[in-house]
């Protein structure tokens, strides 16, 4: 007899994902090994970089990229983030500060292994406040603590009614900063920009993004051949390897398997089990990835995430530096997370329609203001205009203290009941 006071049922233990996605467990250690080797070779340079900045800026200079946010996710998934966050809080960083930042402070100071999310001291750091204002203060703080140079891009935000002429001036402003960054590289790091290498980097990056776009296109299929368990790992090459060939082979294998699945009508869940197709907005709770697997117990599968999609936007072929910089500036300025509300709503509507989404999950991320601002408006608009259920829940990306097991279980089960009623009503009508 079960005598435990709990609302949590037993869950499916098998994680359903593509075979090719499992190869990420070889690609990540390859990157980690390279990072480790890089640390011990004096003439090899490395830099910390944040999301929203093109990693090609580093690969193009043969600088090894280290990504504190990526490493923080590793710490979260390895269940060590809380210890690191509490360490940072003991230094005075408050509870409300970004949990990625605090994880990074803890991971660096405590010198944890790279496998657990540890990160080496870089030769410099580069950041921007494009999608997150904390990025700037975070890197400023860490650059000071590590005594390394910092370069900060100032990327203007496009808001409602920003005119085309203003957008053009913004773009010119960003391009001028990229040239300024080239000077920074030469003056501070002693590396000159090599146009040929930069063009090759952009071309590799374009190939990687093209493959990602194709893979994503197949997620429109019913049943979907790619789930969130896949894309959560699959974004790794997009975060750190755009510009080199290593990630391309990984995506080619993935695309091939996806195409085979589609040809056979196979999905991550069998067609008869795929009851609800969901869109997930926000950064996942890295310490509780099981949440997304558990959804499949109810026949619910996440088939679109703006978060993973945004790492691999399509981009045109370029054969000269000037055009390449324009494309790069565009990419730095236009990202789903900085869309103004009306554009964001239009983006959601488009996805919901094209990917045949039955419901939306919105993660109100306690320590990430930028990613959850506007979510209530978004929720109301989706419900009003499209009539599909939306669940807004409060958690945190890397701080497990913000995840209440029993409350989340009740929310999910209730949401599934709402989805069931909503879908049968839509089918009947």
């Amino acid at each position: 007899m079960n005598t435990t006071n709990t609302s949590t049922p037993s869950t499916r233990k098998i994680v359903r994902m593509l075979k090719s996605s499992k190869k990420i467990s070889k690609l990540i250690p390859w990157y980690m090994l390279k990072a480790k080797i890089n640390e011990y070779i004096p003439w090899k340079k490395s830099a910390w970089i944040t999301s929203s900045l093109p990693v090609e800026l580093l690969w193009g200079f043969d600088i090894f990229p280290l990504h504190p946010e990526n490493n923080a996710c590793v710490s979260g998934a390895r269940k060590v983030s809380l210890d690191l966050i509490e360490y940072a809080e003991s230094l005075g960083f408050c509870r409300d500060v970004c949990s990625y930042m605090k994880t990074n402070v803890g991971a660096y100071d405590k010198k944890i292994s790279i496998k657990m999310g540890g990160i080496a001291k870089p030769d410099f750091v580069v950041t921007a406040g494009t999608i997150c204002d904390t990025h700037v203060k975070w890197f400023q703080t860490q650059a000071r603590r590590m005594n390394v140079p910092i370069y900060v891009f100032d990327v203007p935000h496009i808001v409602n009614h920003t005119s085309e002429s203003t957008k053009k001036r913004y773009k010119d402003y960003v391009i001028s900063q990229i040239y300024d960054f080239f000077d920074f590289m030469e003056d501070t790091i002693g590396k000159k920009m090599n146009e040929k290498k930069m063009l090759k980097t952009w071309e590799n990056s374009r190939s990687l993004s093209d493959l990602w776009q194709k893979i994503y296109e197949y997620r429109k299929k019913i049943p979907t051949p790619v789930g969130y368990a896949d894309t959560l790992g699959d974004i790794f090459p997009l975060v750190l390897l755009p510009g080199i060939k290593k990630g391309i082979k990984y995506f080619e294998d993935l695309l091939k398997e996806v195409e085979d699945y589609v040809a056979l009508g196979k999905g991550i869940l069998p067609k008869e089990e795929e009851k609800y197709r969901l869109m997930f907005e926000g950064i996942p709770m890295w310490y509780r990835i099981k949440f997304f697997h558990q959804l499949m117990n109810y026949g619910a599968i996440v088939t679109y995430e703006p978060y993973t999609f945004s790492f691999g936007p399509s981009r045109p072929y370029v054969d000269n530096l000037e055009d390449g910089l324009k494309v790069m500036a565009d990419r730095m300025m236009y990202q789903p997370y900085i869309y103004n509300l009306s554009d964001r709503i239009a983006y959601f509507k488009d996805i919901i329609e094209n990917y045949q989404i039955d419901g939306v999950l919105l993660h109100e991320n306690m320590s990430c203001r930028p990613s959850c601002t506007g979510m209530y408006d978004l929720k109301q608009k989706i419900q009003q205009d499209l009539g599909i259920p939306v669940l807004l829940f409060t958690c945190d990306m890397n701080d497990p203290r913000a995840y209440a097991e029993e409350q989340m279980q009740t929310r999910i089960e209730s949401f599934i009941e709402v989805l069931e009623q909503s879908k049968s009503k839509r089918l009947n009508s």
Partner: protein
Amino acid sequence: MYTVGIDIGSLATKIVLMKDGKIKALLENRSLHNFTAIGTQLFHQILKDNNLTSDDIGNIYSTGYGRHSISKLTSNIITEISAHARGAQYFYPKVQGIIDIGGQDSKVIKLNPKSSTVIDFQMNDKCAAGTGRFLEVMADALDIPIENLGNLALQSKSPVQISSTCTVFAESEVIGHFAQGTAKQDIAAGIHNSIAKRVASMVKRIQIVEPIVFCGGVALNPAVKIALENELKLKLLVPKYPQYIGAIGAALIAKERFKNGRV
């Protein structure tokens, strides 16, 4: 046909026996530390009191925080959201919104005016402020029985303001007021206003409209109803047996889903 709904809440477990969709018997007890034991005990008790055996029951559904704890006894589970929506409709078929304040959570449910199905819901964040537990802690701080808290608050002419949203800090605030010699009824009224503000913000987020049913154990407290009505500027309907709404809803859903066997 008899059906049973069991609502295992964090503080209290409620059970309802229904016959052909009509209430036959109601029972409740503290949940304490063993959901399985309390759920099973109440089930056997209600059968015994009504001279029935388990074989007489067509379908049994559980709901509430401990809904998964008695899976050997029940045919199926239903969440508090669906159960409360159905239970509220039993008393008020035209209900469009529900406010349920239970022991450990509070929830607001929005219904589709045409189909009466749930279209949205909002639950309290990971915090006890705005729940029955908040009132229990405050009653302890004022050293009065929880049953008297509401009536005491209604005697106030000058409620104090309790500004902390955290239960623990609010308790310190209450003790501070007490130490300053503030009248107990004014502190009690401030406590009720505080819980009302908390729940009202959830109501406003999903924009429910009248008729609104107020249920859950806390609905037995008249001062919370008045404070909520003042805060929201609308009228709330408190059904008979407000604390049993979840169990009643579960028993009704058990009846509706019965198809030649327990499902």
